[in-house]
């Protein structure tokens, strides 16, 4: 059984993940450089302040395009069920590596589903809309101001900035957890991004229900 590999990600899924990952990392790091004066040096590393501010929204647009494709291809596995609620309630067992006390998971556990909904689904939409507002403040204000009477044109752009920042905080904190789980926190996961395959042991240990579904199908 040691060499049995299970396909977890299709070539399309892997391509889409690479697209979101690369663009998100650039938008994330340049966003940090813009948001925090003490991290301004990051912009120097990313090509210079003016360049990084120029590329950030384009990286964001690339993220949103791939994010949209990702939603289409991943969403079918991302709906919550009652097991997910039990899993969330007992999340401390997951943190302490006692999964045996939690409901067995299918292809994605409740944490991964939350990550999908917050960073991928809402991130794709909210970063894009609020980002466009900051990118083209005059055009945005001209379009949106008539719909929200009582709000000044500049206040609308400021509101978008605040929304962008809140989205960044939520998506960014989750993103760090995601990177950890994909690398150091769960050995054997990163290679799935390149090959699309995981070992049978990996599947059995982390996503037993999905593993059995796959075995049944095979």
């Amino acid at each position, binding site marked *: 059984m040691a060499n049995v590999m299970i396909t977890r990600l299709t070539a399309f899924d892997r391509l889409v993940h690479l697209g979101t990952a690369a663009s998100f990392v650039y938008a994330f790091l340049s966003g*940090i450089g*813009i*948001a*925090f*004066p003490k991290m*301004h040096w990051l*912009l120097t590393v990313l090509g210079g*302040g*003016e360049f*990084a*501010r*120029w590329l950030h929204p384009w990286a964001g647009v690339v993220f949103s395009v791939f994010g949209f494709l990702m939603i289409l291809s991943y969403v079918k596995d991302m709906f919550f069920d009652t097991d997910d609620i039990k899993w969330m309630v007992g999340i401390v067992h997951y*943190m*302490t*590596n*006692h*999964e*045996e006390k939690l409901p067995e998971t299918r292809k994605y556990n409740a944490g991964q589903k939350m990550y999908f909904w917050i960073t991928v689904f809402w991130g794709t939409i909210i970063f894009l809309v609020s980002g466009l507002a*900051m990118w083209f*403040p005059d055009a945005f204000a001209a379009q949106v101001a008539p719909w929200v009477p009582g709000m000044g044109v*500049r*206040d609308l*752009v*400021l*509101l978008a*900035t*605040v929304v962008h*920042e*809140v989205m*960044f*905080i939520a998506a*960014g*904190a*989750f993103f*760090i*957890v995601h990177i*950890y789980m994909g690398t*150091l*926190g*769960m*050995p*054997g996961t990163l290679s799935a991004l390149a090959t699309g395959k995981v*070992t049978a*042991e*990996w599947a*059995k*240990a*982390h996503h037993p229900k999905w593993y059995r579904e796959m075995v049944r199908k095979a």
Partner: protein
Amino acid sequence: MSYLTSGSTTGLAIRRMSATKEPVLDIKDQEQLGILVDISSCTGCKACEVACIQWHDLNPPIATEEELRENGFSYQSAPDLAANLFMLMKYQEAETDRGWTWFITKRQCMHCDDPGCLTACPSPGAIVQYANGVVDFDQSKCIGCGMCRTGCPFDIPRYDANDHPFKCNFCLDRVGNGLVPACAKACPTNALHFGTRADMVELGHKVVAGLKDRGFPNAALYDSAGVGGAGYVYALPHGDKVEHYGDLPKDPAISSLVHLWKGPLKWIGGAAILGSIAAMFMHLVTAGPKTVEAHGKEE
């Protein structure tokens, strides 16, 4: 740490810079400058506008006949401020208790004591407030994001094709060398008074008191209290009709959204990002990685 601790040994001291902690201020002692615009003495001749264009070597927008027609052949040189037009005389007419009246207003950067542009700017040192109160841009440090206009309660900065901002700099090169700003120098009616800000506020109150005596009961001093006062102070004959004075905001103040964005959200954001890195590290060294072997044992 500050990106700059004070001004250089010669020239102007720096009071505040964007995205940077307060510089050291006790090295030099420089007085805050001000200009009083006495609107009751202004004839709308635009000498100030011409002097501004001349001194700053501006290439101002010249309206075509079509544009003039669109703007109803206004007295105004241009519909709005522009990157190549740092100050603009604005002309409006409105009904007052003294009948149909001209509201002619000089509009430019106000040089706020608490500048919204400087608060909003993410790039260290791109916006500088000198100890004499003048607020200016350092284009070499600007990343071209456009936040300065969004943060400005007076909607002043305008951008060139490279998204770099331009506005009135209070003739920093003149006042730094003991000269009167170009606009105040050119004004033929003494509607523009230049001096220390404290003197201008005092003079402004006198002008307002005089106006009240002369049958302008609503005369008022426009002193931008919401931004801690500003370099520009206006004596308004019709203080109850602020909005007619070239769209001056009634109660200028930095938006609370700017404070939310630059205050609590920065703390929450920093804590969330650093906190999750710390939490993941803690997981690694306490619970340890989720290896396939570990799970095998538990089963």
